[in-house]
């Protein structure tokens, strides 16, 4: 369609629309830049993490407050994950070894994003395979949804077959280092080996 086929009123309305759009884009850019500055100045502390209530391997209630005074290294996964989760959790165990005495001030935590299948007993058994220090937590679907929301974690069920257990979970793979006050310190990349992970964490621990 060409502009000449429109009456003037329609053309001006279109101009208004164009200028309006430009204005909106500029506004969004300013907003985005502002958010970026805010994030890089430590604003993320209030964006990632927060209070949670879950269950430990013995079925006891556990909250974020139980870990105050220690750094937390939080990883979200599921026990039906035979490939990626054990790989990451092994690097975490290796990083704990590499951190030496500093590891005493760090609590690695595995939180299941598959509460339907991951009972406290199973999570306990699964976590224990990666050394005595890793704590496995699960909860009701609502409790898991709440902690995932706090940590901005994405998870979703993907069917792999017709059976009730025939699904895998898509899940955010990043690890979260939380401070002794429970506040977010930094994300820890999962695609690095234990030595690199320990170096990253060691730098961030005061």
């Amino acid at each position, binding site marked *: 369609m060409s502009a000449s086929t429109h009456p003037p009123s329609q053309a001006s309305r279109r101009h208004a629309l164009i200028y309006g759009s430009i204005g909106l884009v500029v506004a969004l850019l300013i907003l985005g830049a502002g958010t970026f500055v805010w994030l890089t100045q430590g604003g993320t502390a209030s964006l990632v993490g927060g209070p949670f209530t879950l269950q430990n391997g013995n079925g006891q209630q556990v909250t974020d407050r139980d870990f105050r005074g220690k750094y937390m290294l939080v990883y979200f996964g599921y026990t039906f994950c035979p*490939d*990626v989760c*054990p790989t990451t959790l092994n690097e975490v165990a*290796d990083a704990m*070894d590499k951190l030496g005495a500093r590891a005493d001030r760090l609590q690695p935590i595995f939180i299941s994003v598959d509460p339907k299948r991951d009972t406290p007993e199973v999570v306990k058994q699964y976590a224990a395979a990666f050394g005595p220090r890793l704590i496995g937590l699960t909860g009701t679907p609502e409790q898991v949804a709440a902690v995932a929301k706090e940590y901005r974690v994405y998870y979703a069920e993907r069917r792999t077959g017709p059976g009730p257990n025939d699904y*895998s979970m898509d*899940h*955010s793979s990043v690890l979260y280092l939380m401070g002794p006050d429970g506040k977010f310190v930094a994300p820890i990349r999962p695609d690095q080996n234990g030595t690199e992970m320990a170096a990253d964490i060691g730098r961030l621990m005061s």
Partner: protein
Amino acid sequence: MKLRLTGLLLSALVLAPAIALAQGDGIQIENAWSRAAIQGRTGVVYLTIVDHGAADRLTGVSSPVAQRAQLHESFSEAGVSKMRPVPSLELDQGKPVVLAPGGYHIMLMDLKRPLNQGDTFPVTLTFANAGQVTVQVAVQGAGAAMPMHMPMHGNGMPGTKP
């Protein structure tokens, strides 16, 4: 005529296993290993397939230790870990296909028994041309990063912590 037919049948009977063997010889499976896993959960098998014969295709996997087994692929997309079934894997002559952590793997579903470190169990791979090839899989620690017999020096094997 009848004699000739019998002879033909006989030679076919003698030749058939030889052909099957020759086809099986075209496929070589190396470094088959697994990780310790809980009964009723999932297990994993990693291995390397080398096709010395003509191009082939891995079409199926099975193991008596699991109710079902599937070929899977793990990958990361925008910071999200994903895992999907893979219907088949193409094999080119002389080009090894590596099933390793964070990529292709055989997923064992609904384990009939726990896989303990030090165990071995069979897994059968079905190829479009080469037919079935069964290989013994060695179970390592839960978080093992590579097969035990592969050279690795330094401060011990990953995943073998107490």
